[in-house]
């Protein structure tokens, strides 16, 4: 194997820190700390290693410790005109963002963050290092544990190191707003980066080369704004994209992502239902990968 496949020393250290027996909570930037429940305060807190370990601009890949902040990541990538479109607070960590698995508001164009993950090294419940995926931009070697780990709230393993695919930063970005039918906006534009709607007002993000952004903007009667509106953050749920048509404006404050189906609301949302069969598969995974439930107790991917 090449040096690209070698396990960094920092990951070995983290594996020793996670250890083998007591309950532990992995702490990132605490920006989504209560998603899935409040971490059990009695568990020992551990922190994943941080640092950009390699960034090869011509490969458009970056390898970093899971504890690296999004600020550090985006500053590094921006030097080479690249980005990983997480769209989250800069003090959030890469590992935290992936463990929670909630994409940012430009998902409409860039897809789910899990599709940018090439390789994950995690520490399992026995303190051992597990590598899945690989360092190249395309890979189907073995089972796709990378997809499984995204959104797992650290219940199946503690993210230690990730390799991500980077994207070129768009030449131009414009946010526009106005009162218009958001579904018509979606139908008319070619791959906009974001369409937000609060039941009355629409915000649209267009990205690309300047001439395209101008031309797309000219299709709509909208006014330029600085950026997206603040999103209500107490609740979040998702529906199939076309069901957003039937969301009615009531006394709650909400903003929906058109074409994606995510709704940000100021009211805590009820957990979406999981079928019995899927729940039992998920419990089997938990039972096999963390039989004593020592990883991140207090939080639940599958509500109890």
């Amino acid at each position, binding site marked *: 194997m090449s040096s*690209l*496949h070698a396990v960094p020393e920092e990951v070995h250290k983290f594996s020793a820190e996670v250890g083998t027996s007591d309950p532990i909570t992995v702490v990132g930037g605490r920006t989504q700390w209560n998603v899935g429940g409040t971490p059990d305060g009695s568990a020992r807190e551990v922190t994943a290693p941080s640092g950009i370990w390699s960034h*090869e*601009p*011509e*490969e*458009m*890949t970056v390898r970093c410790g899971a504890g690296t902040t999004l600020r550090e990541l985006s500053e590094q990538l921006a030097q080479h005109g690249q980005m990983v479109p997480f769209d989250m607070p800069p003090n959030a960590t890469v590992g935290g963002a992936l463990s929670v*698995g909630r*994409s940012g508001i430009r*998902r409409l164009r860039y*897809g*789910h963050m899990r*599709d940018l993950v090439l390789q994950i090294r995690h520490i*399992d419940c026995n303190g051992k290092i597990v590598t*899945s995926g*690989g360092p*190249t*931009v*395309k*890979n*189907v*070697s*073995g*089972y*796709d*544990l990378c*997809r*499984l780990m*995204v*959104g*797992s709230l650290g219940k*199946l393993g503690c993210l230690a190191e990730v390799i991500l695919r980077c994207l070129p930063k768009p030449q131009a970005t414009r946010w526009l707003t106005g009162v218009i039918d958001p579904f018509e906006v979606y139908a008319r534009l*070619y*791959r906009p980066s974001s369409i937000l709607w609060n039941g009355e007002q629409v915000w649209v993000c267009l990205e690309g*080369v300047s001439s*395209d952004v101008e*031309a*797309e903007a000219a299709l709509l009667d909208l006014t330029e704004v600085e950026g997206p509106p603040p999103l209500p953050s107490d609740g*979040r749920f*998702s*529906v*199939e*994209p*076309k069901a957003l048509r039937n969301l009615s404006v009531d006394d709650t404050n909400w903003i929906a*992502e058109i074409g994606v*189906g*995510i709704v940000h609301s100021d009211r805590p949302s009820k957990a*979406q*239902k*999981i*079928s019995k*069969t*899927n729940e039992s*598969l998920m419990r*089997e995974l938990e039972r*096999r*990968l963390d039989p004593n439930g020592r990883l991140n107790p207090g939080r639940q*991917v*599958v509500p109890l």
Partner: protein
Amino acid sequence: MQTSPHANILDDLRTVLGDRARDGDFELGLYGKDGSVLQGQASIVCLPVATAEVRQIVEICRKHDRPFLARGSGTGLAGGAVPVGDPVIIATAKMNQIIEVDLENRIAWVEPGVLNLDLTKELTPRGFHFAPDPSSQQVCSIGGNVANNSGGPHCLAYGVTSAHVAAIEVVLPDGSVTVLGDLSAEPPGYDLRGLFVGSEGTMGVATKVAVRLTPNPPAIRTLLLDFPDVRDGAATVSAIIAAGLIPAALEMMDKRAIEIVEAFVNAGYPTEADAVLLVELDGLPGGVEHGVEVVRSVAERHQVGNIRIAADNEERELLWKGRKNAFGAVARIKPDYYLHDTVVPRGKLVEVLDKVYKIADAYDLIAVNVFHAGDGNLHPILAYDSGEKGVLERVHAAGRAIITASIEAGGVLSGEHGIGLEKRDYMGMLFSAHDMATQDMVREAFDPQGFANPLKVLPSGSRCSDSFGQHVPDGAWV
């Protein structure tokens, strides 16, 4: 006359399927292999038409303690659909309906036997397509694409199958039916859908798939660039990406590939060139024209010869025809070929290509290279004549050397063909024993007894539940 176990299970299957449960020589010959050189042994083939029938087949298999193997068109190149351990074959060819095209959700629900290109043909007039486009797209099925997490030239910009599948109805190895994922953006719980895609039929049988629809680009430009030296072509690939441009597709063909393809399709490929790049840019017109300029200026810094830009859709299709028929065209030089699939960092393409040529020379084989250069996905073709004594041993030894060279360069075992049988015993070149044991624990959550497509993906030693024999067919690399 129900004396043998074979007759017993066949009788049960015929109760459900009638004459669509078969054990005739024709079917058994057909379903004993896939697109690889590996040969397995089929003894019963089922052709269900509905999820309920698949569920019943799985239940009958459980009752008779027989494994099962679901397969699509059998175009896989890693032996994933080659029967070992005497599984009942579940062929999805008759489950070939496009159930619903839901343009508002940009989703289509399809049965697993729908062919990749048939789906795109259905969608194109409505302004959409299914982005993964393997070279076998005329004949490969969506179910097979899901099993292998298939790619294709346009996955460079659009991502592989996993990114284009929202939900999958699955008959699990215990006979229960469930839907993994859903049409909402953030389905609750763990991403079982993501885990299932690429699991090569070892976690259950996909019976319906909700695929995402990609809007057709308003503008497309297809360029053919020729280079006097293959190294300049490879350097151009890296430099295009480094310039911040991700083309829709970025394919490379070496000299021998150009020659045989040109003789086969007459697309006007420059036979005097050492390498050509086929570059496609798509999207809004401004971005496309900007991309053309970036490609042109990068290529000019790397000794490009001619730059041919397809003038119309007809010329574009002609250029692609050359690329997509390259494998068939190899028959002009040798009757058989072995198609490899590894990925290396783009910056190592030149180095690894050099090694591929040297390896082929050392084993007295002909190497032809046609590949997805933009994502470093090499597809060396080793052309040979199976009539030559001992040639398969040389082909396998050369293949192993190519995989070793790719991994030494920081690459991986497979970019899009999968592991199947072909590479399962090479998994240890990339993963530790503990990595593989963890992967197996995850698989076992779906199939603790190993009923679904036994003996695939992981080396036999790393699976706890290989209850259906260890036989490996002739021609396997083990």
